[in-house]
């Protein structure tokens, strides 16, 4: 109820009709710029081959067909490593990498944002600075590390480095700082709660939007990871790599290529949609307190 009142209150006091119209027009224009190419991707995947190479090209599909998708699946079944293996690899790497990233980044971010220990400032500075160093040149040193650890050509080489992304920590730390109140933590500590308890039961629920963002970021990065310098065995290669091999077959596979783009983008978007519905839930229940 309180929420409804504030909204009405705000509209009366701080909002002009002209501003509302201007903002909505701008949103619709930007939205069209963002959405139309995505729509075109989907349209392309539903076009039969003769429509893909039609002149003049049309935006909308005239006789939609799923043939591109069935073609793609047929091509998949001809690979000499069973295609399910590529899918398993990608799902396994994405899930294991994301889980570790979430756990380690959040733990460290909580300590850096909410516990005043010596050294926390420069540790944080170094982590932020590291975001700005190019990863192409560091891959040589990383290759040395991987081979010293005997991790070359194993899942570990792909999963473990994903556990400590500077970006994930930075994101979590900024939210812990702005959204977790020190007063609540302090009273929990006075009640004898351990730091691990306050982290898990108090801080983490308060920054749910942040770690849902981290999950999306981490998952889509790993999901879209293609060929890696650490992996030689065909059995350990990813879905993205395999699908690119298939669609690299020239013009005859243009249909399958269009379908593969839709499949590759569908999964991160699905993960995002699921997490968004979660955000709405949280917002719904936390709306009570104001």
């Amino acid at each position, binding site marked *: 109820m309180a929420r409804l009142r504030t909204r009405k209150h705000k509209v009366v006091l701080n909002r002009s009709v002209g501003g509302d119209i201007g903002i909505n027009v701008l949103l619709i224009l930007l939205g069209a710029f963002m959405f139309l190419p*995505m729509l075109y991707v989907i349209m392309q995947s539903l076009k039969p081959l003769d429509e893909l190479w039609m002149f003049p090209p049309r935006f909308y599909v005239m006789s939609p067909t799923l043939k591109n998708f069935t073609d793609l699946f047929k091509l998949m079944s001809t690979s000499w490593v069973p295609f399910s293996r590529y899918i398993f690899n990608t799902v396994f790497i994405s899930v294991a990498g994301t889980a570790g990233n979430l756990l380690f980044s959040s733990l*460290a971010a909580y300590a850096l944002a909410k516990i005043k220990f*010596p050294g926390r400032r420069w540790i944080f500075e170094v982590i932020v600075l590291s975001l700005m160093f190019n990863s192409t040149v560091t891959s040589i040193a990383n290759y040395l590390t991987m081979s010293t650890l005997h991790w070359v050509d194993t899942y570990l080489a792909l999963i473990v480095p994903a556990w400590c992304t500077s970006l994930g920590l930075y994101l979590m730390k900024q939210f812990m700082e702005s959204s977790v109140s020190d007063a609540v933590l302090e009273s929990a500590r006075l009640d004898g709660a351990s730091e691990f308890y306050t982290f898990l039961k108090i801080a983490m629920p308060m920054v749910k939007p942040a770690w849902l963002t981290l999950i999306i970021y981490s998952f889509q990065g790993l999901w879209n990871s293609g060929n890696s310098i650490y992996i030689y065995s065909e059995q350990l290669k990813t879905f993205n790599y395999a699908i690119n091999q298939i669609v690299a077959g020239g013009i005859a596979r243009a249909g399958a290529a269009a379908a593969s783009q839709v499949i590759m*983008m569908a999964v991160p978007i699905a993960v995002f*949609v699921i997490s968004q519905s979660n955000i709405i839930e949280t917002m719904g229940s936390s709306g009570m307190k104001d």
Partner: protein
Amino acid sequence: MSQNAAAVKTPKPTSRKDMTKFQWTLKEIARNKTAYFMIAPFMILFLIFTVFPVVLSIVLSFTEFNLLEFPTFIFMDNYIRLFLDDDIFLTAVQNTLVFASITGPASYLISLLVAWFINELTPKVRAVVTLIFYAPSIAGSVYLIWATLFSGDSYGYVNAWLMEFGFITEPILWFNDADYVMPLCIVVALWTSLGTSFLSFIAGLQTIDKSLYEAGAVDGVRNRWQELWYITLPTMKPQLMFGAVMAITNSFGFGGVVTALCGFPSVDYAAHTIMHHLDDYGGQRFEVGYSSTIAVVLFVMMVGSNLVIKKLLSKVGQ
């Protein structure tokens, strides 16, 4: 007895005044053991997979190293060669600066404004709009659709459309024309730029305490722009800082999309960025020392612009 004597000899310091800085630090470290346990897993991996490689690269930037022979120290020679002898690098710096100074601020402002606009929508509508804006950046290589839209033959959607309406008589080779390459790549970069920082802005806006707005209205905030400047932005400063760093790393580190759309090297080096230069030497010519030098220079540029932005952001809400 002896215990007592020891206690008398070195009275345990109790307040900070009685301790040297070192003693106090040690005590604080002991008191906050848990914090060190909490950052340990991240920090160990961070040292192995980030700090060590970065330090090694900085050292290598002063050497000549081709991956086969042991690196030899040549001190500043790489840096001298880079700035005095490498014309393509100067082109790359110029392109990168043009590119970064357009896409960085533009993507930052679009992310922030769109996040702010949609914040007042109802949750269901907001989720749909968020998806529309965010989808291009998580959809992997889907930006390749721009290559289809702007394909150089008459099957390309844009060419066919322009020809049908009589604007042009022959198809334009969009991605092979030095005049069009850069603007097009900027458009595609903006299309994919509403990413993690956009989401963090949305999440940041949602966690703002609503009572602040009521207090602001009482204090004389009259319109939505004042509300944004005096209440919303100062409250979400941590997210603003995060978004700025993201904008810097994305706009200075841009290159992969150009290669995918225009090939490498781009026509007349018209869209050749520092990233391309670095990949060229590091990934193809195996001049690891030289490419490390490029990475260090790029790093310094990013850190510099980060400092400037930090200064600018400290003025928010004033």
